């Protein structure tokens, strides 16, 4: 169950953006954008649809993750033929399926506001970081996962956590040889793991329509549990059904329920959920 929780925590952190390169922070960023397909090509991406799998115990869970230039997003998790929608943003409402009732529930106003601040990160936090009001800073060279990397600090728009404003900083690691993004780290600012460091790792880069994406990621707590995500397919600029993003009427039956579950019963309880009622 903890694994499952951790995984959704990771989803809540959002997809970490792709890659980088060079000496000053800006040189590295430009090098990275160039190495992964070029600024122009990145700018032309309207949406990204990722088909992926996570493995928990013996369960293989398919995911479909969509993010678009106009800020919309969803993650569809398929379990036993049912689709659970997570982190769905239709332009107004941020919602997810509750795992117990299978009905949609809205994220908190704070989460929604925080989510809106990340919309400019598409398709990559580095592409328009100046326009987004972010700042970057070269921290230096550091071994990331055993490999020498340029470490860049990016300060994004501050987040609101429990009514207080907190800084939103992410550290990115770029391979010194190839300028490819190897991973990122940040301090978790909310929830029960607050204060611990979240870490993402990327590998298996491959080309999709002239752009390079990591097809393998792992996300979790630095030095602790992390969840591998294997990507089968990445599609760019794909038509999708906008209706599935709309916050449904909770009273109506829905096969696409959701919400960042903090107590989702999962990973193979041997019988029924064993929690007391």
């Amino acid at each position, binding site marked *: 169950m903890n694994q499952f929780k951790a995984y959704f925590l990771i989803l809540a952190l959002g997809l970490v953006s792709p890659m980088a390169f060079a000496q000053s922070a800006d040189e590295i960023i430009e090098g990275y954008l160039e*190495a*992964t397909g070029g600024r122009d090509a990145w700018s032309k991406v309207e949406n990204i649809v990722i088909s992926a799998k996570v493995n928990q115990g013996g369960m293989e869970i*398919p995911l479909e993750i969509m993010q678009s230039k106009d800020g919309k997003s969803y993650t569809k998790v398929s379990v*036993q033929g*049912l689709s659970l929608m997570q982190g769905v943003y239709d332009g107004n409402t941020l919602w997810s399926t509750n795992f117990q009732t299978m009905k949609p529930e809205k994220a908190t106003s704070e989460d929604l506001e925080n989510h809106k601040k990340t919309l400019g990160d598409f398709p990559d936090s580095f592409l328009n970081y100046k326009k987004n009001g972010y700042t970057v800073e070269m921290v230096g060279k550091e071994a990331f996962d*055993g490999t020498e990397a340029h470490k860049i600090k990016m300060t994004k728009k501050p987040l609101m956590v429990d009514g207080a404003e907190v800084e939103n*900083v992410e550290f990115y690691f770029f391979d010194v040889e190839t300028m490819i993004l190897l991973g990122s780290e940040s301090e978790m600012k909310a929830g029960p793991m607050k204060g611990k460091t979240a870490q993402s790792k990327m590998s298996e880069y491959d080309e999709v329509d002239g752009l390079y994406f990591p097809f393998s990621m792992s996300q979790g707590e630095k030095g602790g549990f992390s969840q591998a995500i294997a990507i089968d397919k990445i599609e760019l600029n794909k038509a999708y059904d906008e209706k599935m993003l709309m916050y449904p009427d909770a009273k109506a039956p829905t096969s696409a329920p959701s919400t960042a579950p903090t107590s989702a019963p999962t990973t193979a309880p041997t019988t029924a959920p064993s929690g007391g009622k």
Partner: protein
Amino acid sequence: MKQLLLLSTLLFFSLPADIFAQEPIILKGKELFGDMSARQIGPGLMSGRISDLEGHPTNNRIVYAGTAGGGVWKSSNGGSSFEPIFDDYIQSIGKVCVDPHDPDNTIYVGTGEIWTRNSTSIGDGLYKTNDGGQNWTKLPFEGSERISNIIVHPKDQNTLYVGELGALWGDSETRGVFKSTDGGQTWNKIFYVDQKTGCSDLIMDPNNPNILYASMWEFRRTGWSFNSGGENSGLFKSTDGGKTWNELRNGFPKGKLGRIAIAVAPSDSKIIYSVIESEDSDQNGLYKSTDSGANWKKLNGDFGLVVRPFYFSRIVVDPQNPDVLVKAGLFGSVSRDGGQTFKDAGFMHADIHDIHFDNKDSDRMYFATDGGVYRTWDGATTMDIVENIPVSQFYHITLDDAEPYNIYGGLQDNGSWWGPSSSPGGVEARDWNRVGYGDGFRVLKHSTKPILYSEMQGAENVWRYDIERNQQKTIQPLAVKGDPKLRFNWNAPITLSPNKPDRIYIGSQFLHMSDDMGDTWKIISKDLTTNNPKKQDQENSGGLSKDNSGAENHCTIFTIAESSLDENIIWVGTDDGNVQVTKNGGKSWSEVGKNMSGMPANTWCYHIEASVHDKGTAYAVFDGHTSNDKNPYTYKTTDYGKTWTSIITEDVQGFTRCIQEDLVNPDLLFLGTETGLYITVNGGNNWSKFTNNMPSTAVHHLEMHAKTNDIVMATHGRGVIILDDVSPLRELTQEVLAQDVYFFKSKPFTMVEESGFGGGSTELQFVGPNKNPNAAIVYYLKKRHIFGKMKIELFDESGNFVKELSAGKSKGINIVNWDYLMTSPKMAKGKTFTFGGFTAPRASAGKYKVVMTKGKVTYESELVIDYDKSSLLTAADRKRHKEVTKKLFDMSEDLAYQVYQMDEMIKMGTKLSSENAEAKPMLDKILPKLTELKESSVITTGDNYVGQAEPELREKLATLYAKVASGFVPPSPSEMDNLKLIEEQFNTIKNDLKAIKTGDWDKLMKMISKEGQASPKLMDKKAFLETTP
């Protein structure tokens, strides 16, 4: 992209060049150790010494705890829980300072504890973070050892003041008050007394930043004595930002002064409190000035105010009320009448070093003790320990051969304990058992009997404890006629013979041996120390305040090692630098330490390791820090000490304490230093610091567990830290390092047959992680895998695909785990989940082929898994378990297919019914039947919690499947009866569906086909099962 391809090409061509290069491949730290990660198991129930507490100027959720040996911990939830934020640097903390100009991000850490007990560690300077502790920079503040305070000027962020106490064990010019006006890049020493006198406290007037108070303290420790006080101690004041200083003395006792605590009342800065140690103990106590230090009056000399000034010189005044103050001390003393009278603080661990008041609510306070951080919500009446700061300070560690093995050791001021290396639900506080009081040191488990030995404070008590009878007896050697006074070290060595289970050794200045578990002792050596009388005057140790705790006992034996290859070979090392060896069971001894070149005389021999590979081989580790020598010293002999070779290189930072020789590969060595763990794979030609989840904490002792190949460390600040299974390191040679991919050998893995309930700790209690019970595929990658596919697949002996695992791609050592599980069944789709369907069947024991596909190249290896040897199952039982599991698995998938057909037929039929008037009457007959079938196959209403519907066939089947598949026993008769019932129901449903399909449905299909409409297609079962779940 072009650039990218070019780079890839370059990378490709660079590979062969590496292989043929002449230079040896030397990988360091994370480059080499990759996924190998240390496991910190605490414990948290006896936390450790906290040296400093700090808050945040406006956010009372934020609290920092600086510790004596466990780094800096931050709470962002009002002290409910803490996280470490300073793991990569020296862990002994003097002071944490939050910059008031940028309190969320800018924090300074001054290293080096200022509570100068004998076992205190050392600091190495001043650090700064600009991002709340995620990254730290060491400031150029050279020569520093102990920082007592850091003050940021309230009007200028770049102006800093630092109080430097300085070196404890020797002279130093880096002492006094320092000032920087450029944010710490350059420093001026603005107040200095002499090489012996440091600044023990520095305070700024909260209303006037030009006013500073500095208490200067003359102090010194040696291995055998302590001195507090002298002509140069005193309290000084500057009113010009530190340019000039004047001593404040009006009203203080005459003569020499010792350590002086000071505090200015934040709400009325004319009021200053000071606790004075002086030549005349009757004059010691609390002094108060109400005129900014011009005049002083003694108010109180209670025990709580004057006890052990070197350890407790701190006063903290309530930020709101100048009359409320708390003095650190044995129990902590609280005054609410401006210092006239005091009462003890509420019950908590003894030895309080610092206090922090919540700046919004003075009833809420935090206490730094020798046993962790305590919180109070009622003004220090009721105390509550923080249970997740595992900063216990172990002195020593031993292991047993239980499965999982247990760990035994003693702690600074927190007794002696034993606990498991793994436990259901993790290693919890309740898993630890006490086996001694006071300062605990060495704890040893008898190799064949349920007996433990443990010891406290200079062998004051040596207990022999019968675990089964819960009965203890003290067995320390007693003086007999003709014996001189026995001198035991504070951390007296006790060792068991690896050859004779009942034999035990204890060292005083002599080596004592008992062959009957401590009932009878005989001395088997002469005085093996230098027996220097100048180092034996502990009665007069302490300086102005006598402090003869026993902690300074010297000219004693400190380490004893009997060779496991020959009981007559015994090595002894002493705290005054002797290395003695006997080859005849103690009849004669040779001092062989003199044969080491470059080893300063009389340096503390901290540990001797007798080789398990060769009788004449031993390692001797020396710690010179008590002579103010912080260099590492470790020597190896192969000829019983006639000659020695230093195995230290420039890689090793900080003084050394202990070494462990690998039990298989003599060139693999593990070295414990004051700043962490170092490993060599080539006998000491070069060393690499191990930093994966391993803080830079002092490693006082370490052991290797023979069965598991784990390295277990006694850290003096972060509890027990385990490096699980280091056997891959045995294979690291130049040939291996030159390969692109290398699979390490592995022993067969055991599928442990356990399924308990786990722990009972609360959210805020520390729980140490367990050893990973899964199978591990361990390999070395010369380079990180960045581009293109990489996967690991398992195949059984018949070549059938079993499972794909996510590959590790790090440069260095990768560890890919397999939890022995296959894939869970595809389940019928219902309205809700069926939890039983999440269960995956376990793999069978046997040999598996491991295939790594890395781009276009494949690499192969092998993995063997075994059943649990303690299992009661027969081969026939296992066969039956497997068969029934398989049957239930197949039934679940079959039901999924049946339900899929029903769903499709209902969907098609509904559509057809609305479009085709002729078909409608037939469908009016078929559809209700299909719906009824579906409703008895799976849940079609309700939710996943209390709104759940009554279970249908899918749910019943899944429940039985999970019960059988996840169990370790064959299905019971009752389960088989249940299966029979389910099978009957399932057959009915299948037959009913078949009847519809071959009957009415078939007619319908024929009819629409005649009309020229294409009949809708259903997937066959194979195709259905291959679609995503």
